[in-house]
């Protein structure tokens, strides 16, 4: 299918089909941990001669929501004459992670490359289950400067070794309902105080409309919330025992428990239910992965001029948001190392990576973000460009090989605080009692 055909298809999608796609896209974006390894573009580097005998490449790709990826595979097969066996991974993130963990831990030889997230790059990389990608970067002459450096160094590498090349960018941006803002006569907030004021003006509990959506259920999503709010306070999910992080957590709880600008069901909301609420006109603002933004805007008929985004309001310490990505990793136990490297190199090419816009996602290469076609079909790209140009406003999550353990410890204890079971101090102390030994183990 041609690129034009893809675009045409995405524009003529029915509302029902859009909602289905958006839902799938939402689930995909929802648990984004982001980050992936990439390889070099064969065409850009002159490529390699097609093998006389076609070889079989086995890849696993997580949660595609339309047929754009088949186009990527077709292109690779045409260029190399190789055959791609494409396995769709389980849509539920945790199931997907367990599937890959089981395979890799058992020395799987049936998977050559897979679509990996931020956590997987560090966890599997540290375990020795992924192939280092520096040789791929060199072989295919990949210019890693074209990627947000935090994605390369903080969430695609571990211990100085690159295990993934980012393919699709995921950054949490503050999106909002322009019609609600206009109706209430308010502008996007620039700091936390204004956030509460604007949120209050937008909230109409009788009408079931809230100023801001929060997804604080445990299982990964609260962890992301903890990270981006405490980070603005000067802390982090692995550094909660300080005034900034405490202030951030207290502020977060106050949004629904005191200011009532978020529903009091926030501790049980997940991305799926929040997105459902967003589609039902329940929320005016949501600070979440930009994949949701793409899902809202790609249907021009339904969402035209109703949704936009602004830079995150300033917190007590900074105005940063969190970023991450999905990308491609090569499996260390694969018997087809060259083929896996070739695939990673292929997907790192700008022209290949760009095809993600046909599902509303932003490619990881920064140079693509200003491309008009990218800005048209991946509507969060202008905001990512704004963030990039502002400089220093995006920060990857503090990923270490035990990040899942840290997330679990922080989530369980902060959730107990959010649901009035323990005090803030008790929650922070209990969380850090678990996190500190883990950090000591990971970082020495």
């Amino acid at each position, binding site marked *: 299918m041609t690129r034009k055909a893809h675009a045409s298809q995405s524009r003529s999608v029915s509302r029902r089909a859009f909602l289905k796609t958006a839902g799938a896209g939402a689930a995909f974006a929802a648990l984004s941990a982001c980050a992936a390894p990439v390889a070099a573009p064969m065409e850009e580097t002159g490529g390699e001669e097609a093998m006389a005998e076609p070889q079989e490449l086995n890849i696993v790709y997580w949660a595609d929501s339309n047929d754009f990826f088949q186009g990527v595979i077709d292109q690779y097969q045409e260029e190399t004459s190789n055959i791609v066996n494409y396995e769709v991974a389980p849509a539920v993130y*945790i199931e997907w992670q367990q599937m890959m963990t089981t395979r890799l831990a058992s020395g799987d030889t049936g998977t050559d490359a897979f679509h990996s997230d931020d956590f997987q790059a560090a966890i599997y990389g540290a375990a020795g289950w992924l192939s280092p990608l520096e040789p791929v970067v060199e072989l295919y002459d990949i210019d890693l400067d074209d990627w947000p450096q935090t994605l390369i160094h903080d969430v695609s590498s571990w211990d100085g070794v690159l295990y993934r090349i980012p393919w699709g960018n995921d950054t949490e941006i503050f999106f909002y309902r322009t019609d609600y803002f206009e109706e209430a006569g308010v502008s996007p907030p620039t700091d936390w105080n204004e956030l509460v004021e604007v949120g209050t003006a937008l909230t109409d509990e009788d009408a079931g409309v809230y100023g801001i959506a929060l997804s604080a259920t*445990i299982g990964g999503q609260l962890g992301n919330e903890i990270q981006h709010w405490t980070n603005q306070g000067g802390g982090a999910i692995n550094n909660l025992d300080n005034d900034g992080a405490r202030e951030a957590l207290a502020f977060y709880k106050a949004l629904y428990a005191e200011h009532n600008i978020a529903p009091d*069901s926030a501790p049980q909301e997940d991305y799926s239910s929040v997105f459902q609420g967003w589609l039902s006109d329940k929320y005016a603002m949501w600070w979440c992965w930009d994949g949701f933004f793409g899902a809202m805007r790609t249907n021009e008929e339904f969402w035209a001029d109703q949704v936009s985004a602004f830079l995150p309001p300033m917190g007590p310490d900074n105005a940063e948001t969190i970023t991450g990505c999905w990308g491609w990793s090569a499996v260390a136990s694969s018997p087809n190392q060259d083929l896996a490297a070739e695939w990673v190199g292929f997907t790192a090419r700008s022209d290949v990576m760009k095809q993600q816009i046909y599902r509303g996602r932003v490619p990881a290469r920064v140079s693509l973000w200003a491309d008009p076609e990218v800005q048209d079909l991946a509507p969060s790209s202008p905001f990512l460009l704004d963030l990039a140009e502002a400089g220093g406003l995006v920060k990857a999550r503090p990923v270490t090989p035990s990040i899942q353990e840290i997330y679990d410890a922080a989530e369980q204890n902060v959730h107990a605080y959010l649901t009035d079971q323990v005090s803030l101090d008790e929650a922070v102390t209990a969380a850090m009692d678990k996190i500190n030994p883990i950090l000591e183990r990971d970082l020495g």
Partner: protein
Amino acid sequence: MFGQQNLSTRRILLAWLLVTPVVLWRLLTSVYPFLRTFYISFFDNSPVRRTFDFVGLDNYMALTRDTNVDATLTFTLFFTVTSVALQVVLGLAIAELLNQRFKMRNFTRAVNLLPWAMAPIVIATAARWIFHQDYGLINDIIWRLSGERPLWLVNFTTARFAVTITDVWKNTAFLAVIFLSGLQGIPLELYEAAKIDGADGARSYWYITLPLLMPLIISMIIFTAIFRVLTFEIVYALTNGGPGTATSLLSYLVYLEGFRVLNFGYASAIAMLLFFIVLIVGVLGYGFLRRAWERL
């Protein structure tokens, strides 16, 4: 004589030959994993950290300091006792109803089993929506009646109730069917004799039905309690162990440590704790069961 001995030996050998594959299979799939889990519980074993270091009883000592284990044990006990008690009482009541003569009795018996026949993960996922504050079926009814929307899965107490009641709803049907089969095995003559002696329905139930059903009830309490201690899917899909760790069960903790964070050593220690709890439930239950049989 020697010929008979040879025949007997040959039969024994044949018997062993026939059962050996099954015995080996069970050794491989049950005994080996158990022994391996026990062995690993003495190690700091993480494939991610590439460790397999002998740590003695450290993992077991860590259990005593882990606040998650405290919370999990508390809820496991609450969940097991409450759920089993409700299932047995409701199961007996439903069995009694299904044992009556009425139209479409067979159809009703089949419908009764539907919740049990559904996959736990499906029920738990559906329950997550049913208990949702805004979109949930339960809250919709409550809201229509009272204008309130309780936060089932946010509040500590109601979340525990939600997990327990979901489990009870799913599994009571099975107990009812088992108790029904028990009721059908009680000779009608006993009730007729009691009636002649002037016993009313309640007294017949108390002095005939319950004593005769007691071995079956105790057997089912043992099995149901063990299954409750081992429950995983409902918590996994309904609450993720939350709010906080309020609804975390031991098997869910094993899953978190073993499969989410890949601490195989510590997860094995929790699994052994789980095993000993199941063992205690089994041994105590067996003692009660033996006494019940002796009384009969």
